[in-house]
């Protein structure tokens, strides 16, 4: 009897269900990923009138995106690779891309949840509201910005095999991004560092999310930031895929 192949939709939905279940069972770490930007949002309440709600919310979303891409995604990939979970799936008739696509879909959902929580907290706690188009563009830009950090996470798991080292590296990069990024954005670290951060993944993502929330403020510099964000994503994705090994041995 000839062998028949499973349909791609069946394979993908099975993978996605399992990945969503795993994410749900690890919800404590997911809560932490959302909690940090929420705490920043709450603690920056006094700054909203001075620097604008879009600035504050976009900063918080950017911090959340960094956490999702670096801490959530890359650590789960490094851990599962080390356990041989990917190799087990790859000896089944599941295309390699579907295994990763399922993981990325879960992270996409995390981005939507994190952004929604920040919008709700911003509304409830700080009475921050945006137009409908602002929310829609804000979500869209959060997803575009999230891709940068997911692809950066992919580079880290591509370059480093040991899950403990991946964990330590992502924490270090996360810390560097949020501390340097936030302080530089507030003008604390001087003009040179400020300019550097402005065109770094932190600055470009923050700006496109901010302009997404207030579409009327979108200008040429925002378009440049969007193009640069897409460029970062393309470079990190290429490097991340090229360097990635399914086996940690």
């Amino acid at each position: 009897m000839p062998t028949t192949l499973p349909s791609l939709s069946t394979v993908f939905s099975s993978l996605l269900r399992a990945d969503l279940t795993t994410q749900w069972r690890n919800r404590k770490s997911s809560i932490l990923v959302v909690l940090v930007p929420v705490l920043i949002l709450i603690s920056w309440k006094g700054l909203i009138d001075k620097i604008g709600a879009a600035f504050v919310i976009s900063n918080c979303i950017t911090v959340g995106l960094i956490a999702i891409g670096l801490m959530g995604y890359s650590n789960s990939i490094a851990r599962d690779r080390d356990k041989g979970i990917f190799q087990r799936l790859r000896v089944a008739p599941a295309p390699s891309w579907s295994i990763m696509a399922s993981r990325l879909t879960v992270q996409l959902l995390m981005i939507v949840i994190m952004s929604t929580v920040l919008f709700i907290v911003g509304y409830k706690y700080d009475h921050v509201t945006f137009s409908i188009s602002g929310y829609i563009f804000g979500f869209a830009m959060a997803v575009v910005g999230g891709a940068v950090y997911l692809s950066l996470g992919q580079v880290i798991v591509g370059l480093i095999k040991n899950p403990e080292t991946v964990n330590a590296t992502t924490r270090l990069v996360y810390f560097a991004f949020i501390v340097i990024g936030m302080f530089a954005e507030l003008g604390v670290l001087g003009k040179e560092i400020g300019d550097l951060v402005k065109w770094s993944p932190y600055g470009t993502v923050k700006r496109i999310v901010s302009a997404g929330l207030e579409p009327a403020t979108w200008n040429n510099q925002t378009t440049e930031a969007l193009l640069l964000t897409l460029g970062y994503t393309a470079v990190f994705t290429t490097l991340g895929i090229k360097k990635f090994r399914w086996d940690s041995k």
Partner: protein
Amino acid sequence: MPVLQVEKLNVAYGNFQAVRNVSFEVQPGEIFGLLGPNGAGKTSTLSAVEGLIKPISGTIKVAGYSVREESMYARASMGVQLQATSFQAELTVSEIIRLYAGVYGLNLSKDRLEAILSDIKLQDAAGKRYGQLSGGQQQRVSLVIATIHEPKLVLLDEPTTGLDPQSRRQLWERMEAMREKGHGILLTTHSMEEAESVCDRIAIIDHGQVVTIDTPQALIDSNRDRPEVVRASRKGRITLEDVFIGLTGNTVRS
């Protein structure tokens, strides 16, 4: 038609050639053992059959499908039990079975799931997370996943390592039941007792090359007078282990 055909397989890692011109076949309803010391090339051969590494030359066909050109069909025709525990520790036994049923395109009814769990005596552990199972229970889950889609070829990589004698015997019985159903099984093991008990034929592989292929008894009979085999004998009679030591040497491999 053989369920597995390996012809002139060569695998290399950089300048190191791990597998050299390895050829063998596994027939339906046959348990074929691949034995060799550490680093002999067993895992590389198995990985090439699984499609996890790309050989530099040679052909591998699973149920007639080329592992390289028709990889998805080849994968769908085989079931694999890897050496390491390789399922998400957070998922329950039922969830893992459902995941792999979906990946192999099976529509798993509640009754069928219960029958599977009952078959591996894990009805009471259906809702237990994989990470909380004992080694023997994990092996049973792993084996049931490897055979859930009734594959023509089953690859078992050192399946009884770390199991107690009862669990090991139970696994042998499962392998024999699979053989009765017509599955071809490729088994790697370090246990000569296991190879002698369950394998229909054995290939001894060393330094990346097949040293010999035959039935366990024929291997013993044809090698019993070799001086290196006689020297290796410790029980006053020639065993498969003596033949293995005689043919591959008694130096400990890394």
